[in-house]
C-alpha cells in the first residue's frame, strides 16, 4: 500500500481516541445500561484490547465509537473524541462523513460482513466512492493496492470475486482492506479472528500488527485473552458494562487483580494439564470424587495392532469420497485409522475442511465408509446393517456444536430428556411420565449439574452453557460407553467452555466413558486428550500421546499448527 507512515501530527502519543464515562442504554430510560461509565484512551500506533464475555458490553462500546450503537440506543458520555475532535452529538450526516475516513470497523465473519452479492472490489471501493472524488478507474487501482497491502498477493485475481468465492483468510483480509481503504487513524476490530482456523488467525493478527506499526490506533474487541495477548499493548477487561481492570498486557496476564480477569485466565485451556479444573466448582455440582491423577491404564500406542482388551472404537483404513453434482469428487477422508482405548479420550484436531466431522459421522455410522471399517468394543459396527446396529446404538452417544439446532424447539427440557430415556421406540414422550422415567430424568440433570427448575423451559430459553449440558444429559440417557463430541464447546464463552470441559472430565471418570473429542481448538484438545490425532486434508498426519504431540511434534503440519496457537504470553 502506498500509505506512508502516518505524518506525525500532533505530539507523539497523542490520543487518537478518547472515551470518558461512556454510558449506553437500550429500552426504558432509567433501565439498566448495557455500558455504564466506560473510559479509555488509545494513542496513535497503540492497540487496546477490550476483553469480556458475551453480554459484557464490549461490542456496544465498539459500535458507539462509530455512532452505530443503533437507533434504539441512548448514548451519553462526558467525552468521545476521534483525533482530538469531539464526536458527541454529531448529526447523522456528520457521522457519515467521518465513518470510514476517521474510523474504520472490522467485524467477525467476513462471509456475512461483506455483501455476498457484490464483488469485493466494489465493496472496498465504496469507501473511496463515498469519501473521495476519485474516478472509477483510480478507485479500482487503489483497491488493488489496498488488497495487496492486506496480504492478498495477485489482487487482480481476487478483486472480482464475491466473499463466498474466497477462503476464510482471504475474505477476512478483504474485510480489513475495506476498513483500511482510506487509512483511518482509528480501527475498531470486533472479534476479527473469531471462527478462523488458527493458522489463518495468526496471519490476520500479523496483518493487524503491521497496521498498528504504521501508526493506526486499534481497538481490538475479543472474548479470547490468548488471542489479544499477541498484539495488544494494553488490555481492558469488561464485565457487566464496566471496565473492571485495565493495564499493560503483561501486567494483566501475569498479575490479574480482578476476580473476573482471574476467572477468564483460569478458563483458558491452553497449556493447562489434563484433569486440572478450568472453572471454580459450582454450587450445583460439587467437585465430586477426587480426581484420579494416576496414569491411565496404558492406553496402547494409537497405531499398534490390538492384542489385549478391545478398543472402545477402532477405525481401520476409513475412506470417504463425496461426489459433486457435475462429476467433481472430493475425498473427505483418506486412510484414516485410529484406536480409542476404553476409558480414555482421543482428541482429533484439524482445521476446517480437514475431514474431522466426516470422521465423526463415519464413527457414528451415520455415513457409510467407501473403504475400511469401524469396530465398536471389539465387534463389527460400520459393517452391520442399520437394523442390526440399532440394538447397539445406545452404546454410542453424541454431542454437537450447534446443540440448539439438535433440539425440537417445541419440547421442554423434561420432554427432551424423557424421550431420550424412553429410547427410540415410543413415538411420543409420555406426558405424565412414569415414576422410573422421572427419576431417570432427575438423575441425568444432577449428572450434568443443572437445577431441576429448568425442566419446564424450552431450549431457546436456556443459556448456551445450559443447552450444552442438556445436550450432554440427552447423550448420556442411553447409558453409552462411548461419547462422540464434535466441537462441543466451540460456540461457548471461554468460562462456560471451561465448565463444560470440567463436566465432561468428571463424567468420564464417574461413568468410565470413552471420549472421541473433535475440535479445531488445539488448546482444548491438549487439555482434554490422552491421545491426539492431527488431521490435515482428510488424512491423519500425526498421532501420539498428548504430551508427545504437543511437546515434540514430528510432522511439519503439526509444528505449523502449534506455532499458530495463541498463548497467554
Amino acid at each position, binding site marked *: 500500500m502506498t500509505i506512508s507512515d502516518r505524518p506525525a501530527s500532533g505530539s507523539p502519543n497523542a490520543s487518537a481516541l478518547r472515551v470518558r464515562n461512556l454510558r449506553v442504554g437500550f429500552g426504558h430510560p432509567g433501565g439498566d445500561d448495557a455500558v455504564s461509565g466506560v473510559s479509555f484512551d488509545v494513542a496513535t500506533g497503540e492497540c487496546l484490547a477490550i476483553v469480556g464475555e458475551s453480554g459484557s458490553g464490549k461490542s456496544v462500546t465498539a459500535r458507539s465509537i462509530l455512532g452505530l450503537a443503533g437507533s434504539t440506543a441512548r448514548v451519553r458520555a462526558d467525552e468521545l473524541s476521534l483525533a482530538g475532535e469531539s464526536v458527541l452529538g454529531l448529526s447523522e450526516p456528520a457521522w457519515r462523513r467521518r465513518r470510514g*475516513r476517521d474510523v474504520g*470497523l472490522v*467485524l467477525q465473519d467476513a462471509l456475512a460482513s*461483506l455483501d455476498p*452479492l*457484490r464483488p469485493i472490489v466494489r465493496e472496498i471501493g*465504496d469507501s473511496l466512492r463515498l469519501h473521495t472524488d476519485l474516478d472509477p478507474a483510480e478507485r479500482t487501482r487503489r483497491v488493488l493496492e489496498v488488497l495487496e497491502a492486506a496480504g492478498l498477493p495477485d489482487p487482480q485475481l481476487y478483486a*472480482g470475486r464475491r466473499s463466498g*468465492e474466497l477462503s476464510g483468510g482471504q475474505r477476512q483480509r478483504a474485510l480489513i482492506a475495506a476498513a483500511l481503504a482510506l487509512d483511518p487513524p482509528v480501527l475498531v476490530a470486533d472479534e476479527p479472528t473469531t471462527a478462523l482456523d488458527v493458522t489463518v488467525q495468526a496471519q490476520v493478527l500479523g496483518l493487524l500488527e503491521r497496521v498498528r506499526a504504521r501508526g493506526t490506533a486499534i481497538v481490538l474487541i475479543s472474548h479470547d485473552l490468548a488471542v489479544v495477548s499477541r498484539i495488544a499493548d494494553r488490555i481492558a477487561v469488561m464485565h457487566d458494562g464496566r471496565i473492571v481492570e485495565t493495564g499493560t498486557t503483561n501486567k494483566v496476564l501475569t498479575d490479574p487483580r480482578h476476580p473476573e480477569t482471574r476467572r477468564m485466565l483460569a478458563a483458558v485451556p491452553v497449556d493447562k494439564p489434563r484433569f486440572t479444573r478450568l472453572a471454580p466448582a459450582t454450587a450445583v455440582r460439587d467437585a465430586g470424587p477426587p480426581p484420579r491423577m494416576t496414569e491411565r491404564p496404558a492406553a496402547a500406542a494409537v497405531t499398534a495392532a490390538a492384542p489385549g482388551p478391545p478398543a472402545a472404537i477402532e477405525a481401520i483404513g476409513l475412506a470417504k469420497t463425496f461426489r459433486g*453434482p457435475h462429476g467433481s469428487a472430493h475425498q473427505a477422508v483418506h486412510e484414516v485409522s485410529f484406536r480409542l482405548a476404553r476409558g480414555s479420550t482421543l482428541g482429533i484436531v484439524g482445521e476446517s475442511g480437514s475431514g474431522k466431522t466426516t470422521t465423526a459421522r463415519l464413527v457414528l455410522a451415520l455415513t457409510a465408509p467407501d473403504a475400511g471399517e469401524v469396530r465398536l468394543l471389539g465387534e463389527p459396527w460400520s459393517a452391520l446393517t442399520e437394523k442390526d446396529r440399532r440394538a447397539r446404538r445406545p452404546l454410542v452417544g453424541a454431542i454437537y456444536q450447534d446443540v440448539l439446532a439438535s433440539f425440537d424447539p417445541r419440547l421442554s427440557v423434561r420432554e427432551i430428556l424423557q424421550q431420550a430415556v424412553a429410547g427410540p421406540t415410543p413415538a411420543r414422550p409420555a406426558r405424565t411420565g412414569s415414576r422410573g422415567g422421572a427419576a431417570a430424568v432427575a438423575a441425568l440433570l444432577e449428572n450434568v449439574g443443572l437445577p431441576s427448575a429448568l425442566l419446564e423451559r424450552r431450549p431457546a430459553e436456556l443459556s448456551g452453557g445450559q443447552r450444552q449440558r442438556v445436550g450432554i444429559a440427552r447423550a448420556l440417557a442411553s447409558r453409552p460407553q462411548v461419547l462422540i463430541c464434535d466441537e462441543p464447546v466451540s460456540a461457548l464463552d471461554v468460562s462456560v467452555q471451561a465448565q463444560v470441559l470440567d463436566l465432561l472430565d468428571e463424567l468420564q471418570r464417574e461413568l468410565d466413558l470413552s471420549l472421541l473429542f473433535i475440535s479445531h481448538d488445539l488448546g482444548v484438545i491438549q487439555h482434554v486428550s490422552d491421545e491426539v490425532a492431527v488431521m490435515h486434508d482428510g488424512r491423519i498426519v500425526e498421532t501420539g500421546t498428548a504430551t508427545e504431540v504437543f511437546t515434540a511434534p514430528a510432522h511439519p503440519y503439526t509444528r505449523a499448527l502449534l506455532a499458530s496457537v495463541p498463548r497467554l504470553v
Partner: protein
Amino acid sequence: MAEALTRVPLRFVARRLGGAVFVLWAVATLTFFAVRLIPGDPAEAILGGPGSQTSPEALAAVRAEYGLDQPVFVQYLSQLGRLATGDLGRSYALNMDVGALVLSQLGGTLLLAVLSLAVAWLFALLLATWSTGRGRLARQIGSGLEIIAAALPHFWLATTLIVVFSVWWGVLPPISTADARGLVLPVLTLAIPLAGFLGQVMRESLVAALESPFVLSARARGESERGVLWRHALRHAALPAISLSGWAFGSLISGAVIVETIFARPGLGRSLLNAVTVRDVPVVIGVVMVVALVYILMTILTDVASRLADPRTASIRTGAGG
C-alpha cells in the same frame, strides 16, 4: 454486463427449452384426454351445441370431416402432428383458425399481465421500503396492508373499484376501453393482491438484509440509509420476489379470465371462458397450450433473472466457485 451474461450459460437455456418441449407435450396429451371426459358428442357441439336438432347424416358427415370416427389413438397422433407444426385446428363455434384467434387475443392479455406484474412490484417495493426502518407501528401497518391485499378476491376487488372510481367518482370507465384509462382498473384489480404477496416476501428479506453484518459494515464505511437500501438491501429483498414472479405471472393469466369478463375486455381469458361454455374443444386446447407456453417462457425468464441478480445460484448449480 458481459461478466453477468456468462453466468447464464447457453447449455442452461438449452436444457430449459428441452424441458419446455416435454411440458408442452404433457399439456397437449392431458388436455386431449381430459376433453374426452366432457360429456356429450363433439359433433353435436360443432353443429350448434347440445340440444340442437341435428340429423344423423349431418352428424356422420361432421364426424368424417373432423376425423372423429377414427380410433382415439389415431386422433391423438394426428392432433400431436398438427400441434407440432403449429396448427391449432379450427374453432367449432367461430369457424376460424384457432391459431389466428389466439394470436389476436394474446396481446391484450399479455399487456394486462405484464403491466399488473410491474405495478405489483412497484407497490410491493414502495410498501416494503416505506414500512421498514421506521419503527414498530410502520412495520405493523405495512404487514397488515399486505395481508389484507393478498386476501382480496379479484371479483370483489373489481366490483369495488368499479363502484368507487366509475359509479361514485366517475373518473375511470367501468368497462375496458381502447385507451390507457380503460386499463387502469383491470391492472389494479390484478396488481393489488399480487403486491400483497410480493410485499410480504420482500419485506421479510429486506428486514433480514438490513440487520445483517454486511449492512453494518457498509454503514461503518459511511454509507447513507439510501445507499444501504439501493446498493445492498433491495437487491437481497428482490431475490425471493423474482423467484415468485414466474408463479405470479401464471396466476395473473388465470386471474385474467375473471378480470377480462368483468371489464368486458377482449383477451385470452374471455375467449377461454366462452369456448368452455360452448364446448369449443379446439379453442380450449389452443388457449391452454399457449398459456402453458407463456408460463414456461416466463419461468425461464425468472430463472435467468435470478441468476443475474444472485450470482451465487449459478455457482451452486454448476458446482463452480466455493
